[in-house]
């Protein structure tokens, strides 16, 4: 199998390439749900192994993880453990109308604080919008990775994948 995916030429994925990993809007309205952008077959199964509800499907260690959205309980463990920082979380259950909460893993300084307005970046590093930080989690399981939850307009929910304080 040659490694000639177009996303390997670019270094980032387009929205079409991750479309099938994005949870449907009805599911996001019900509560937090994980989405993964690990779209190349690499030998790693940390997400599938840590998931408490077996919501990440992965027949062999070299398969692309697939999140079963109805099984996902939004615990964020996959975000914390993923070495590729390729898991994100979407949630519309707590946000005001027209807004979505997006959770991204963050390992840079400075670490934003709750209430800060940060730059929200898309997959190519473009500053698409400003966003308010609504939650910051640091868990020992994550070995130092922070999880930053920002509130963005719905239209950016599938685009914002990083923040810069």
């Amino acid at each position, binding site marked *: *199998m*040659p*490694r*000639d*995916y177009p*996303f*390997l*030429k*670019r*270094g*980032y*994925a387009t929205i079409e390439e991750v479309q099938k990993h994005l949870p449907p809007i009805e599911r996001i309205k019900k509560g937090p749900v994980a989405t993964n*952008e*690990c*779209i*190349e*077959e*690499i*030998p*790693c*199964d*940390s997400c*599938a*192994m*840590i998931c408490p509800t077996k919501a990440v499907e992965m027949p*062999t*260690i*070299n398969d692309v993880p697939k999140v079963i959205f109805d099984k996902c309980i939004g615990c964020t463990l996959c975000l914390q*453990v*993923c*070495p*590729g*920082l*390729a898991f994100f979380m979407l949630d519309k259950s707590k946000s005001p109308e027209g807004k979505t909460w997006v959770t991204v893993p963050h*390992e*840079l*300084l400075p*670490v934003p604080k709750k209430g800060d307005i940060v730059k929200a*970046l*898309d*997959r*190519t*590093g*473009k500053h698409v919008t400003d966003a308010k930080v609504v939650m910051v989690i640091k868990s020992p399981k994550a*070995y*130092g*990775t*922070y999880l930053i939850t920002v509130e963005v307009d719905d239209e950016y929910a599938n685009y914002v*994948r*990083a923040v*810069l304080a």
Partner: protein
Amino acid sequence: MNNKVINGGKSSKKKKKQGMPMNEKDARIRQHPILKFDRGKKIRFFFKGKPVEGYENETIAMALYANGIRTFSHSFKYHRPRGMFCAIGKCASCLMEVDGIPNVRTCITPIHEGADVRPQGRDSIIAKAGYFLMNHIHMGPGFYYRHFIHPGFLYQFYISILEKFIGPGKYPTKVKNPPKTVKKEVETMEAEIVVIGAGPAGASAAIYAANLGAKVVLIDENRYIGGQLIKQTHKFFGSARHYAGIRGITIAKQFEKEVKSNKNITLMLDSKVVGIYDGNIVGVLQKNRFLRIKPKKLIVTTGAYEKTLVFENNDLPGIMGAGGIQTVMNVFGIKPGNEALIVGAGNVGLILAYQLLQAGVTVKGIVEAMPTVGGYFVHAAKVRRYGIPIYTRHTIVKALGKKYVTGAVIAQLDDKWQPIPGTEKKIKCDLIGISVGLRPANELLLQAGCEMKFVSALGGFIPLRTENNETTVKGVYVAGDLGGVEEASTAIMEGRIAGISAAMSLGYKAPDTEEVLEKIRKDLADLRAGPVGERIRAGIKQVLIEG
């Protein structure tokens, strides 16, 4: 002696003279998202006779780097500035004279109070003038031994004059702080299993062999266990049953704990294996003695070191191996530069870009000659989302700068791998990271007489070996990058296989040993099963022999 410390506060003119590309007074990283640095107490030593401040846990080269000094010496022949490249004692770039001892690998030599560090090679004004004359007026870059030979009887006279200008400089005649006790007689000891190298493969081999009851001697030239894991701040891929999701630095600590608590392992750190002699006898050089160890089984896990790339000016200070940069910033907590360009978008290059961001360095781009990134997509996505451009199908044409790097020229490649004229792009940077792959550190195996084969997919000359990782020399095993450049997870598995096999051949065995061995083999095959492992699988097929 001048008591003023070279640590900022001096005029910019002075800094420039010292080879200071950065405007910072102190390049040490005080805050890092992942790491905490234990530097120990302050120490003062001397560079070219002037006092410099360092910390006791730093090495000489690192302390100089932290003070903005990047030019350590000048080259023997063309008087080119020399800085640091590999930062793990594998190359000859950082050699200096310390306390009168020449050729000290300053990147791995700790500082001590009052150390007298001096550059090697001619560094005076006269030498520079001499070099200028030789190079620009008389003959251009040519080897002077070829020109000053007529008439023949004057040759020695010419050389005696020339050596005042160029060459290694004046040799020191005495050592300033000689070690107090040096044992002159060679000690000989016997061991059941000797493991050379305490990286992921070596430590795993030692632990698994020792757990079966074998007495193991684990030797490493560094002062710590874990090899290159100690600079890997990223979380590991692989199987969650092993180390996936855990950062390399944490894995190194786990190894250290396991090795130190194992009664069957004798640990020899800060000990260099200088040769493997007849009968697999291992010569070990320690600070004040030379040891000869005769093992029943020998496991060699010396790992690999970085390749470099040919381009104009590729020897300037500020051009470093990717691993070297990682050592500077992740082990010693020193900012390696302000603006970086990375050559090679394999996993190492991509991870390096991300780690540079974490250390507060601006990454100007990653250049990759292949049409796609060589590393995992997720690593590329991780740096792309912070806006770092990845130039696939590009190469570095030359580095700019005279005393240190001030920029680089990159260009697009055509189908024949030649730069396309007109596509050149100038990038301003003061650091260039070279991550174009590794080659196995196979010198000891060559001494032992192991049969080797060149396998480009595995990084170079690779020892032929059986399924149990035994080489063509009976009783000599390999594991890790030395047996084919891969990554730490597979090195750990291979180490376990080598450790168990060596112990079993000595008669050590537990009831479930064979089962365990089978399981490790299966896990290893799983890790290599995907499309990323395709090249590796093909490579290993070429070096596998019947046991």
